[in-house]
């Protein structure tokens, strides 16, 4: 680790620390329906949305109605995205003619299973991509289907978090807010204006934004180079801000047109954490004790910094097998050292490690370096971040409600040790809350472990529908040994956690993987959201127990430690066997020089 690398990580963290409060305070006002400085401009737009959809702004919903609205919205979103993809040949802004007769030779076919996977992926805020953007999708699909879901799925996540916050804040109430209003407010006041600013900044730095067909260049040495184009900057901004992560291009944020400079890279990372970090403040503010929000923020920070430095340490230490070939691993002023396989020179080791942590702490899934090529422990960090459910700042909204789920579990287990029925934010944590938290935990663990288990052993007849020419589901892997298993484990962890990043060596564009990862994404999204909304509804109906010295304090270092411990131990206990057979054993094997 170099002083400069540490400086990059620490200064990024300080930036998030500084932005959390203003962002959180702004969102508190927005979701309370209070005026902000943007209301002059945007209030008419908000009203227009209600007018066009027939939503009544002043009517609140019970948790069941809230859930029904959310499901209805997600269902139509899915149908739209699926339909637009399948019909892209007949729709405009398709200069390369994807899905039509004159598509380029390297184009990927838009099969029903791929369209299903992609639609689920973007609707669930996962943005797992079984395809490469520049070889598969028209600009119309990228804008009208995917960019829309980048906004919508992120705003849905925030809406759920806001509803859960209300559950804690209210007492003896039936309603937890109005889904449509929360959705519109998030989109109009939070995501749109900030995305616009970020998009223009990206464009100024070199991110492209056009509807041109691909440029054919003749290189200096006289070869032909086809340079992909498209409306990238606009999608890139919301891709980060909405913790979506679905790249316009196959190489995602490593692509110079998506993320041209270290400065845009910093903005990308800040955009990922901006809303999740802000929501911790919104939480504290809304429940009437900002310390509660800061405690959550602190627990997230501890886990974030631990992950970032672990990843950075191992990436900077490099791969001994490459060192044996005469490759320098020590960093110097003129070269980055460490493990540069799958990393960009402009970002180097520290920024890539930081980004890898940030993107998997949050449910973003964008990458600036190939996680598949990380050192084993470097790859373990993203994998573990996802397996604990992306609660380290996490996805927009999803991070907060995921972390509150752990808070409920942690408070329940340890809270008993103060000799009272556990309480969190003045709400008694009882059977119902525990049950819902366990359903969520169980569903996501099951989605990862069961699918990964099946894919480790299942075989299909060669060239059959399910897995094409690969035959066995392990035939799709780009690596052998424990790392190959890591690719499978990563795929389902990423799907169930709604992350979307990949150990990208796996060729997941087959009906088997598209379908199973799609299911993992659905489980990981809705089997957390629905239980958490049930918790919100149940909490809202409860009285608030006054705080006394007999109340478990949930704002101090002790609670932060408890929460961190709960996240790590629950995650580690569930996934240790699987992890020990992939990155952990791989780490020892790499040091022994064993290759696969």
């Amino acid at each position, binding site marked *: 680790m170099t002083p*400069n690398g540490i400086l*990059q990580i620490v200064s990024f963290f300080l930036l998030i620390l500084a932005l959390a409060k203003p962002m959180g305070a702004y969102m508190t006002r927005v979701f309370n329906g209070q005026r902000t400085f943007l209301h002059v401009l945007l209030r008419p737009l908000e009203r227009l*949305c209600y007018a*066009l*959809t*027939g*939503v009544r702004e002043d009517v609140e919903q019970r948790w069941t109605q809230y859930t029904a609205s959310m499901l*209805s*919205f997600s*269902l*139509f979103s899915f149908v739209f995205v699926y339909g637009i993809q399948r019909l892209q040949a007949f729709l405009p802004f398709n200069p390369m003619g994807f899905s039509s007769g004159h598509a380029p030779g*390297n184009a990927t076919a838009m099969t029903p299973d791929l369209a299903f996977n992609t639609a689920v992926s973007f609707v669930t805020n996962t943005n797992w991509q079984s395809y*490469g953007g520049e070889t598969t999708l028209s600009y119309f699909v990228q*804008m009208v289907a995917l960019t*829309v879901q*980048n906004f919508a799925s992120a705003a849905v996540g925030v809406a759920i978090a806001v509803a859960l916050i209300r559950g804690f804040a209210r007492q003896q109430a039936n309603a937890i807010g109005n889904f449509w209003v929360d959705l519109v407010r998030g*989109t109009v006041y939070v995501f749109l204006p900030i995305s616009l600013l970020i998009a*223009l900044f990206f*464009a100024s730095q*070199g991110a*492209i934004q*056009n509807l041109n067909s691909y440029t054919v*260049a003749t*290189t*200096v*040495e006289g*070869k032909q*180079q*086809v*340079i992909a*184009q498209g*409306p990238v*900057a606009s999608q890139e901004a919301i891709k980060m801000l909405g913790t979506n992560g679905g790249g316009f291009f196959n190489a995602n944020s*490593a692509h*110079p*047109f998506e993320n041209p400079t*270290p*400065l845009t890279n*910093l903005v990308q990372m800040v955009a990922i954490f901006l809303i999740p970090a802000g929501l911790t403040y919104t939480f504290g503010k809304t429940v009437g004790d900002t310390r509660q929000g800061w405690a959550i923020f602190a627990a997230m920070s501890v886990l974030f910094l631990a992950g970032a430095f672990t990843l950075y340490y191992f990436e900077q230490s490099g791969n001994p*097998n*490459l060192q044996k*070939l005469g*490759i*320098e*691993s020590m960093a110097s002023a*003129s070269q*980055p050292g460490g493990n*540069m396989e*799958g990393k960009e*020179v402009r*970002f180097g080791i520290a*920024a890539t490690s930081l980004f890898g942590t940030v993107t998997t702490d949050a449910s973003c899934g964008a990458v600036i370096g190939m996680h*598949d*090529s990380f050192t084993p422990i470097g790859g373990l960090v993203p994998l573990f971040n996802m397996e604990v459910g992306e609660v380290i700042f996490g996805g927009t909204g999803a991070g907060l409600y995921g972390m509150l789920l752990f808070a409920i579990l942690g408070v329940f287990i340890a809270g008993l040790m103060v000799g009272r029925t556990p309480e969190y934010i003045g709400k008694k944590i009882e059977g119902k809350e525990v049950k819902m938290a366990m359903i969520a935990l169980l569903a996501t663990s099951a989605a990862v472990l069961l699918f990964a288990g099946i894919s480790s052993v299942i075989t299909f007849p060669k060239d059959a529908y399910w897995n094409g020419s690969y035959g066995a589901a392990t035939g799709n892997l*780009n*690596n*052998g040994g424990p790392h*190959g298993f890591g690719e499978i484990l990563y795929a389902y962890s990423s799907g169930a956690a709604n992350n979307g990043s990949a*150990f990208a060596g796996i060729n997941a564009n087959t009906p088997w993987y598209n379908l199973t990862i799609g299911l993992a994404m659905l489980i990981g999204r809705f089997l957390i959201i629905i239980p958490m909304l049930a918790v919100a509804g149940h909490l809202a109906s409860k009285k608030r127990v006054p705080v006394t010295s007999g109340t478990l304090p949930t704002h101090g270092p002790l609670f932060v430690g408890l929460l961190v411990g709960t996240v790590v131990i629950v995650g580690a206990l569930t996934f240790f066997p699987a992890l020990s057979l992939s990155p952990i054993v*791989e780490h020892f094997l790499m040091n022994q020089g064993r290759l696969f």
Partner: protein
Amino acid sequence: MIKQLLPGFRMVLVLTVLTGLLYPGVVTGLAQILFKHQANGSLITRNGKVIGSEIIGQNFTKPEYFHPRPSAAGSDGYDASASSGSNFGPTSQKLIDRTKASVAQLRAENPSFKPELPSDIATASASGLDPHISPASAAVQMERVAQARGVTREQVSRLTRRFTEGRDLGFLGEPRVNVLRLNLALDERFPISR
């Protein structure tokens, strides 16, 4: 649930227009006005022909040019319509084989360079389109480039320094050399008569 269907349908439509058409439309319009060069790919033209993008790497194999990093984009590398990394894991035999070949080639092409190779020059980038190499990786190749162009290493080195970008804001990212821009400058300053 049925009662929620209609607003759901309408809301998807409204948000699609707002965020799928209006938003990218506005960004495209503004970017095309404000940052026309960047928004269209920072393309470089010579004699009215596009020869590449400033920020997209392209392959160089000739001795008089600085060579970029190995690329996994497309079947031959540096395919800017098929960005990709190698996705070789740390215990991959293929990774070691490929790196071994790159190292051998580098050693053969730059026989005067004896120390350990910089970590970036024999490894594939994430995008396969990395426009940069580290200053150390440029240094590996200076002797060869100077020889091929019939100039001194010092002259090449000086030019390389001019094209070395520092860290953004002094601490972000890594120092780097843009291979295409440096090679274009080489052609300009130290042209080879063919």
